[in-house]
């Protein structure tokens, strides 16, 4: 039987486990609440056009609400506007739109803060060695998409490095940075980038990675040259594989985000809105609902509140 309420979920890509789990969470919740969920995704990180098409198609099927993790938070705005004009509730998930009020509500996580957290932890862990740290930055791709930039810059800020323009990667002049390379967010890219940066400077001892798969790849490269214990790897995401990597000492610390929770909250909010017209409440003191970040590590440092990998494994998203 077709239900009254149709909710669309548009994720950035359909291969990244982060979004796959988000989708699964949304599906479960939608079933609980008796909603019909339609899922869409971009075809690559940064794919705006497919997301625009998804919004149009959702308008055409008469969706009640759209949850979107925007690949390009600025470029998607006109399409979102059209949806809202058609009476659809649009909730930005994971990534706030720019401007943020382009969406009816935002349930997101602060990627800059996630980066900052692991940056601070890395600095604290190194202690006095911070001054002559050798840092490798493993980013996503050369396109400088928002998450990539925010996590990268957040890490550097947290580590105590002057970042100049927070929208631009690589304008730092700090000599401790060995270099930036790109990983496509996958293991093979992580390994290749790590190998190449190690060739430039074999004494690298801090590795920032944009996500956990690239961290796992970087670890393989380090293992191949026997430096895996001399290097601190930090990452962002909080997938179960990543948390297990923290437990096993592959990753020093990772900033856990909560995609499933975002999806669940988003679907609930959509259901609530369609029943009562009530808008979701933002977190206190913020313009959006923040699902937060937690630092997962088994080696607390610098007094930063942390969650152990054992606890982390109970919360991780997949």
């Amino acid at each position, binding site marked *: 039987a077709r239900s009254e309420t149709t909710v669309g979920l548009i994720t950035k890509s359909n291969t990244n486990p982060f979004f796959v789990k988000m989708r699964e969470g949304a599906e479960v919740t939608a079933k609980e609440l008796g909603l019909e969920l*339609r*899922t869409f995704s971009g075809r690559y990180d940064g*794919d*705006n056009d497919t997301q625009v098409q998804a919004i149009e*198609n959702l308008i*055409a099927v008469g969706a009640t609400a759209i949850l979107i993790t925007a690949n*390009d938070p600025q*470029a998607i*705005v006109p399409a979102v506007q059209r949806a809202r004009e058609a009476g659809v509730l649009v909730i930005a998930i994971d990534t706030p739109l720019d401007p943020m009020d382009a969406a009816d509500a935002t349930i997101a996580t602060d990627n800059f803060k996630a980066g900052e957290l692991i940056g601070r932890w890395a600095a604290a862990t190194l202690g006095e060695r911070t001054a002559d740290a050798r840092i490798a930055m493993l980013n996503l791709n050369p396109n*400088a998409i928002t998450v990539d930039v925010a996590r990268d810059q957040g890490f550097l800020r947290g580590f105590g490095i002057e970042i100049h323009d927070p929208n631009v990667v690589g304008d730092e002049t700090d000599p401790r940075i060995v270099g930036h390379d790109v990983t496509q967010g996958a293991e093979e890219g992580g390994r290749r980038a790590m190998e190449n940066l190690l060739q430039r400077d074999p004494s690298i001892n801090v590795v920032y990675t944009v996500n956990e798969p690239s961290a796992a790849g970087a670890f393989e490269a380090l293992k191949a040259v026997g430096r895996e214990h001399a290097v601190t790897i930090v990452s962002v995401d909080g997938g179960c594989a990543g948390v297990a990597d923290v437990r096993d000492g592959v990753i020093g610390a990772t900033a856990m985000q909560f995609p499933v929770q975002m999806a669940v909250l988003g679907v609930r909010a959509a259901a609530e809105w369609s029943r009562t017209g009530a808008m979701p409440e933002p977190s206190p003191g913020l313009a959006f609902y923040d699902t937060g970040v937690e630092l997962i590590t088994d080696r607390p440092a610098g007094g930063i509140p942390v969650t152990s990998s054992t606890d982390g494994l109970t919360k991780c998203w997949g």
Partner: protein
Amino acid sequence: MLELIHRFFHRNPTAAPGIVLLVAVAIFSAVAGDRFFQPFNLSLVLQQVTIIGLLGVAQTLIILTAGIDLSVGAIMVLASVVMGRLAVDFGWPPAAAVALGLAVGAACGTVNGVIVTRLRLPPFIVTLGTWNVFLALNLWYSRSQTIRSQDIESAAPLLQWTGRSMELLGARVTVGSLLMVLLFGVAWYALNWSAWGKHVYATGDNPQAAQLVGIRTNRVLLSVYAVGGVICAVAGWALIGRIGSVSPQAGLTANLDSITAVVIGGTSLFGGRGSVVGTLIGALIVGILRNGLALTGVDVLWQEFAVGLLIIIAVALDQWIRRI
């Protein structure tokens, strides 16, 4: 009777894919519910295929010469970024910005053409290389930053003109879609009713023979790549209209998608055989499949699966129709 049918398909090589298109529409009308077969939704499909359709025109011309252009997506984005930056950030008059954007497209295409003809390198390698180059230029010139819709609206509404839509029998047709249809018409005329068109076919079919009969194949190739570049720039303009803003991230799958439309439309990747109308139909088939699947509410994962399967089925059906 059979004789007549044969003759019909021989005379109208695009009839077979046309029938496939109709079949696809009919099936989705049955499966995807009444929302699918509505003027509004069908015009949506037209809007959704505008970009790939425009790039498909350029790609068809190039593939007919036995070439391939992997840089169409990059040229498109670069042109749109140039238009946006000039008009919004540097305050150029919008018309001048558009003109320079088109000129950039022509320049990019000409670069491809010059390398292909002067150095005699395989177009695949040349355009793969320039694809990297143009994308890097695009990221550098745009500083990887999106130009927001609101800013364009206030500074240079002409850039968004291609996105303006008009009501036509309950359908909403955008200027961009009309531009696409227009360019398909022009390309069709040029290929079928001008000497240049015949030379394009001859060059792709048998370059040695074309040269021996006195066709300046290098000039033909150069003109095709340059014209292709301009059409890509038009696609860039249409892209601004379509998404409202200028995004340097766009267009990564555009190369593959445009080639797909060309091949589904029955044009041979070996050159010399095919038609530009086929490409339009090819683009529409893919658009219909994606839109229809979306309306049926299939999970994204299985949507991709189904798109893959249906593309094969569509082309198989097309071949089968031709053979009976």
